[in-house]
């Protein structure tokens, strides 16, 4: 990702766009934060929020006509939040917090002619920036028409206080009588405030100021305060003009362009999207006392603020919530991550934890795709050899195993051709071998020339960002399909379906559920109490399969309980995108959040979703449990362990092969026969540490006294396969061996031909100068 791509990503997420109120405030006051703070009763903090954007807060907060309210999202839901009234209540309740910070004095002097609101606002901004300002005012006091306001609208003391504060900022006030032409002709910068009575000599010099910069034709001269007396927003418009002119004057005095990258007033324009369809209308609070809100009224009124934000995606995604921000921020973190060549890649976990489920893309008003962002970042990491080796290790090993020891591709027994080819998917084969066989039988009843293909579609390689391995497997899959006579594929897995459709478009593929739905006689079974149907995330863009499943269920008379995020908006179970591999803790949280969305028993049609959701401790059924009553598993069945997934794949393959010729098929590895005794706590330990029974058997096989002796090569310790230690007192043994990228260890007792496993562990570090 380069800078420009980052900008493009950032621009897609509009979460940082201002809410209507802020966009509609000519001063950019953060009405959202202000309302939240008032609602919390923190008046002093709320005033501080106003002071951040507002000049002369005591005056402006009292007099602002609140043009922001025109753009408030509450408008149609009981009336705009009364920000104007709330500001008055706030400054009345909380006095100013003392001094305003002034930048170090600057040499260039500014003359202001006129003492009206626009002039005061300009003097405030320039004074803060360190310019010495001399302000000439009509009448006795600065302020122009502000001096004529009734006490309850603007207390004289408040005006006085704000004027005193201006003096603290380096503003000197002089009566208009002391103004000489020389003074303003020689000033380095000059502002003419038309919202005060100006001398005739000055008015004759006035031309129409530029509407954006408020510059006059005379160099270094600016003018504002031009609002009509009957303008609805007269006061705040003049304050705003003073501020805009101050920006220009500052730029002018620094020799900068008046217009370059100048942020224009938004007049309520914003890209922020905020969902309001769940919001109940609440009427605007009217103050009982015409002078303004009581504290209680103010708190109540402020609580009507909707806290306008987008966060459409974050609200529904555990992963996006887990990292504490929203996609715009994440895009930057991911960019920074790749920009750092060495050092701490803080965003590695962020990048590897997304389930690539694309729910965010569906919910986002701008189609921001965290999945694309993360997948691309993973591909870069793999290419640049920065991918943490352990992040996807287990899932990739699983894929390789399913593609070798678990793989099989045959025409149906007794046939030499395949008109269709059943590709159950490695997860279904590994978790539900009996159901896989029974589904195959059912498909063969519909089309006898249906071959079988046990394999993995390479989704794990794709999700891991491993483009090279992914491409290589796709090529092998395409070859395999060609060798079978290019039949149509039938798969029971939404991920396989998605991978084939997106990456092997020449291969015709359809869902087993679509096939079953098309044949009423093939979709029979027994209904249960209402079930909540959880669509797999990889079916998101596959309405056909989603509809087919519903057709099948309707035929069974199966009632469905509602589940909020379904169909196009469905949620991931936590397995997708290898989240489960890179961030198992988050994956469990995701599953827990998903099952918490319904009281009903859950039904899925993805074998992986079934086990992943069941891990959250709720009954979950798989579609075949309904369709194949003889092979049905109880909804409370525990998820299949990682060890069983492997051995069941092998068994399924063996069973299928036996249908062709009893002797066919690979002889089992010699270690497969070793008998293990694994207690429940050890099984849990193995699952958590991702250690397979297969791994342990290989270790134990190598640890055999004779084999060990034979394998020791004193000239090259690295060639030695394993080691074994004995505790002479307890008789405990520890065996170890390096298998692939990992060194595994097992502590056990050997008793009557059975290995009782005490514990097992592993590490990725390689031992040298000794040997495992």
């Amino acid at each position, binding site marked *: 990702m380069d800078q420009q791509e980052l900008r493009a990503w950032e621009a897609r997420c509009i979460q940082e766009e201002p809410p209507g109120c802020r966009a509609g405030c000519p001063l950019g006051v953060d009405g959202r934060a202000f309302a939240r703070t008032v609602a919390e009763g923190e008046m002093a903090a709320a005033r501080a929020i106003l002071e951040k954007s507002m000049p002369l807060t005591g005056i402006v907060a009292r007099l602002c006509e609140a043009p922001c309210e025109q753009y408030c999202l509450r408008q149609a839901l009981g009336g705009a939040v009364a920000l104007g009234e709330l500001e008055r209540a706030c400054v009345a309740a909380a006095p100013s917090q003392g001094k305003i910070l002034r930048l170090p004095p600057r040499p260039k002097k500014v003359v202001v002619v006129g003492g009206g609101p626009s002039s005061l606002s300009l003097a405030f901004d320039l004074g803060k920036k360190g310019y010495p300002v001399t302000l000439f005012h009509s009448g006795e006091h600065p302020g122009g028409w502000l001096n004529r306001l009734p006490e309850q609208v603007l207390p004289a003391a408040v005006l006085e206080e704000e004027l005193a504060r201006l003096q603290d900022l380096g503003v000197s006030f002089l009566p208009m009588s002391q103004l000489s032409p020389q003074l303003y002709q020689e000033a380095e910068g000059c502002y003419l405030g038309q919202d005060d009575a100006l001398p005739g000599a000055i008015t004759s010099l006035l031309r129409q100021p530029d509407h954006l910069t408020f510059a006059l034709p005379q160099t270094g001269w600016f003018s504002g305060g031009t609002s009509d007396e009957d303008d609805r927003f007269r006061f705040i418009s003049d304050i705003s003009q003073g501020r805009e002119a101050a920006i220009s004057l500052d730029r002018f005095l620094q020799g900068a362009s008046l217009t370059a990258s100048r942020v224009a007033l938004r007049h309520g324009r914003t890209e922020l999207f905020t969902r309001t369809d769940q919001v109940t209308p609440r009427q605007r609070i009217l103050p009982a006392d015409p002078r303004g809100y009581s504290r209680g009224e103010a708190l109540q009124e402020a609580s009507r603020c909707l806290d306008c934000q987008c966060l459409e995606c974050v609200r529904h995604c555990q992963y996006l919530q887990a990292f504490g921000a929203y996609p715009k921020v994440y895009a930057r973190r991911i960019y920074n991550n790749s920009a750092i060549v060495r050092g*701490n*890649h*803080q965003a*590695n*976990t962020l990048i590897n934890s997304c389930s690539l489920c694309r729910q965010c893309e569906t919910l986002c008003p701008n189609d921001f795709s965290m999945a694309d962002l993360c997948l691309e970042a993973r591909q870069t990491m793999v290419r640049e050899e*920065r991918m*943490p*080796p*352990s*992040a996807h290790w287990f899932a990739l090993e699983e894929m390789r195993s399913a593609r070798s020891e678990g793989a099989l591709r045959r025409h149906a027994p007794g046939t030499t051709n395949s008109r269709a080819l059943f590709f159950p998917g490695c997860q279904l084969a590994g978790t539900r071998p009996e159901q896989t066989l029974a589904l195959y039988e059912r498909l063969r009843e519909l089309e006898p020339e249906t071959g079988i293909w046990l394999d993995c579609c390479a989704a794990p390689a794709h999700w891991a960002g491993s483009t090279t391995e992914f491409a290589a497997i796709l090529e092998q899959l395409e070859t395999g399909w060609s060798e079978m006579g290019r039949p149509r594929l039938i798969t029971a897995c939404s991920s396989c379906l998605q991978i084939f459709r997106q990456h092997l478009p020449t291969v015709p593929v359809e869902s087993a559920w679509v096939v079953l739905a098309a044949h009423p006689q093939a979709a029979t079974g027994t209904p249960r109490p209402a079930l909540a149907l959880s669509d797999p995330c990889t079916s998101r863009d596959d309405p056909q399969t989603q509809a087919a499943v519903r057709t099948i269920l309707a035929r069974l008379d199966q009632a469905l309980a509602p589940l909020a995020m379904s169909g196009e908006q469905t949620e991931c179970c936590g397995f997708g995108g290898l989240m489960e591999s890179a961030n198992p803790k988050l994956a469990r949280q995701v599953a827990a959040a998903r099952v918490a969305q319904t009281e009903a028993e859950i039904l899925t049609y993805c074998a992986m979703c079934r086990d992943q959701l069941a891990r959250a401790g709720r009954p979950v059924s798989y579609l075949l449990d309904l369709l194949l009553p003889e092979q049905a598993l109880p909804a409370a069945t525990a998820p299949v362990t990682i060890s069983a997934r492997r051995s069941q794949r092998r068994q399924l393959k063996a069973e299928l092969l036996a249908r062709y010729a009893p002797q066919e098929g690979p002889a089992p590895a010699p270690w497969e026969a070793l008998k293990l005794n694994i207690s429940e706590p050890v099984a849990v330990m193995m699952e958590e*540490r991702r250690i397979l029974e297969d791994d342990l058997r290989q270790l134990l096989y190598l*640890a055999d*006294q004779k084999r*060990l*002796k034979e394998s*020791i090569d*004193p000239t090259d*310790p690295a060639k*030695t396969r394993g*080691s*074994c*230690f*004995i*505790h*002479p*007192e307890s008789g405990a*043994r*520890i065996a*170890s061996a390096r298998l692939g990228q990992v*060194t595994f*260890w097992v*502590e056990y007792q050997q008793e009557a031909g059975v290995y009782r496993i005490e*514990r097992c*562990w*592993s*590490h*990725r*570090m*390689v*031992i*040298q*100068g*000794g*040997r*495992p």
Partner: protein
Amino acid sequence: MNLSFLPADMNWRCQSCGATLQPGMVELHYLGNVFRVELPVCPSCSAVLISEELATGRMLEIEQLLEDK
């Protein structure tokens, strides 16, 4: 990681050699980094014993640190 990781119970014997393990210096390599540590080693065939505590504690921590996980 520049330390000694000798378990409290050093009474382990190498099965192939029959020798009792002795403290010995061993190099642990990961992602281009090398750590020299003291571990129980077979004096005859240099087999090394890495305890569960070490593998799931300090070693895992360092592996993850080096992986920037």
